[in-house]
């Protein structure tokens, strides 16, 4: 990656240079914001990173964010491949959590059957997320409603359903509370060994998801079909593909993965249903995939970085009286800056090829 030219100067690969420039610009921007907000930038970054990586416990928190985030991102790779903007992923996570809670509530009376119910809840969550995604899919393919609006609307509906359940039929005995439903007994928790603190099942799920997604998209019929429809649905039809069916299929995959993420939020993290059960992971996963440039290899590291930012920014209100949305600002700014960098490269390439480039000013 790094080499020397004849004069002994370091040549860093252009991509690396771009990445460093992007990161530099973003942290410069964030520092500016911190100064405006009256906080010392270096201290803020210190807390950001310390808050996520300074101890094993903190690290496990990061992993607990990384797991659902990566699961959602894997599912989104399917919908992006076919050219869909699955903004509804947030709601799909929530419905996954709802189905999970529903199954687990049925298992409260039989403590020995704990693992069975957990497995059932995983299946139910995937099914629930997939079905919710299918609604948006059909609204698009049969109803002609843009998937962005359908997804968005369904997100709000899902949030409404979650709130209604928490304050209504599933409320805690006594007074309904914002802290969610009653916590599940330990038999219904996804088991985590004391030292590891992360359920191995969850880790296995993520790794399986990454591998399965990567293999499917690259080597299988489904991957090729999704790619074809994504680039030219009309022509794909002439080749015997059914674009509508494939779109719904992609949504089913995305919803299924998102549902699993929702399940883990309940069984491994919160052990009950809370109003913010999806924790914005759906929207964040969209950013992760964009920053990873739709490349399966980059999804896991980018998601990890974002998870660090998420967990680290929780420290900010306590330590520096700052709002924790600084993490979100950095994440968004990174994606924006990367888009800008892509664009810059494209302009240079276009000009080098002798084509004209849109330019402001009088024609």
């Amino acid at each position, binding site marked *: 990656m790094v080499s020397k030219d004849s004069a002994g100067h370091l040549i860093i690969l252009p991509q690396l240079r771009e990445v460093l420039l992007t990161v530099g610009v973003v942290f410069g921007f964030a520092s500016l914001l911190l100064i405006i907000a009256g906080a010392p930038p270096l201290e803020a970054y210190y807390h950001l990173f310390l808050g996520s990586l300074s101890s094993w416990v903190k690290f496990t928190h990061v992993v607990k964010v990384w797991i659902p985030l990566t699961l959602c991102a894997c599912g989104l790779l399917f919908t992006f491949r076919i050219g869909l*903007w699955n903004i509804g992923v947030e709601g799909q996570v929530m419905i996954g959590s709802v189905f999970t809670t529903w199954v687990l509530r049925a298992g409260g009376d039989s403590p020995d059957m704990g693992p069975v119910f957990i497995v059932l809840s995983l299946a139910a969550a995937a099914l629930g997320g997939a079905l919710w995604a299918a609604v948006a899919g059909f609204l698009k393919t049969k109803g002609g409603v843009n998937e962005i609006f359908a997804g968005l609307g369904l997100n709000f509906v899902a949030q409404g359903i979650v709130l209604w359940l928490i304050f209504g039929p599933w409320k805690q005995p006594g007074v309904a509370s914002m802290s969610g439903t009653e916590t599940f007994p330990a038999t219904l928790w996804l088991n985590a060994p004391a030292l590891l603190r992360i359920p191995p099942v969850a880790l296995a799920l993520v790794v399986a998801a990454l591998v399965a997604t990567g293999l499917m998209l690259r080597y299988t019929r489904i991957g090729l079909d999704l790619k074809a429809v994504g680039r030219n649905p009309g022509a794909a039809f002439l080749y015997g593909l059914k674009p509508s069916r494939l779109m719904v299929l992609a949504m089913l995959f995305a919803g299924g993965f998102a549902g699993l993420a929702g399940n883990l939020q309940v069984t491994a993290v919160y052990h009950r249903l809370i109003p913010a059960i999806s924790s914005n992971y759906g929207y964040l996963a969209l950013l992760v995939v964009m920053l990873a440039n739709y490349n399966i290899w980059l999804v896991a590291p980018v998601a990890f970085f974002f998870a660090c930012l998420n967990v680290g920014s929780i420290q900010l209100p306590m330590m520096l009286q700052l709002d924790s949305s600084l993490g979100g600002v950095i994440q968004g700014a990174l994606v924006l800056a990367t888009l800008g960098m892509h664009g810059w490269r494209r302009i240079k390439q276009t000009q080098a090829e002798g084509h004209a480039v849109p330019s*402001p000013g009088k024609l």
Partner: protein
Amino acid sequence: MTELDVSIIIAGVIAGAAPIVLAVIGETITEKAGLINLSLDGSILLAAMASFVVALKADSLLAGFVAGALVGAAVAAAVAVFSIFLRQNQVAVGFVLTLLTRDLAYFLGNPYSRLQGPQTAPVPIPGLDQIPFLGPVLFNHPLPVYFSVVLIGVCWWYLYRTSPGLKLRAVGENPKAAYARGINPWNVQVFYAVCGGLLVGLSGATFALCTKPGWGRPQGAEGTGWIALALVIFGGWHPLKAAIGAYLFSFLQLMGIYFQGWLPAVPSQVFQVAPFPLMIFTLLIMSLAQNESVRRWAAQHGRAAALLRFLSGMAPASLGRPFRPD
């Protein structure tokens, strides 16, 4: 509270719709020129925060509104630059910006949360406000509300009765042909993106200084941007129809409050969430209206055909696809 006072309802609808109308008209202009500004929801929040903080610090409502407008314009300019000159997907850029601006708003606005700030006051129009019934309903509103109503007419006149408006529509229909006629389509699109952004920013300022005064997390304007985007489609990219949609929406929101009072058994979440499935439903109706078999059926039923014609509106042909020369 449970009594229906029609005059209060109408006044409430007009006042409540003001920021929505501003956002919808702004986005209609932008999309008519061919650009989609998906960052609406976040821009409104950021503009609201900025206008509140500036108004508070400068102790001037005017400064607040100006700040809000400028913020909205800046975000819209970013969308335009990224998609036209940097050739990035408009939806992608808009989506990132909607999240980024929202987080920026919450972060920078944190110290100003729940503070008491300047607020607009109703400005009765002398003479007109004495008209029985209509007077207090229509002519006793804060300035931003009057502005929003006047804006609808101005926008219609500009789009359909002036040369620059014709140019705007032409660029949205076929930027390549505009380019061939010596019109710089990118300039036009950036210009109207900024104009639309100014109005979107004013929408945010109106929230923070007039309709739902103050700043906090949440502010109360959350979700409006998405509704505005859907209303532009509902209005067939026509300012009058889009404004009707905005008033309809404001009416439904108001009715939601009344229904809540009449039906206490129904959980409050239903009323809070109701606008969004309604939005999907209207979009569904709109797109079914374009469907061929539906059109054929309606052709045989006179009144249905008229309704269909009212509902139909064609998107500007080049929407979302900036022109690449050569």
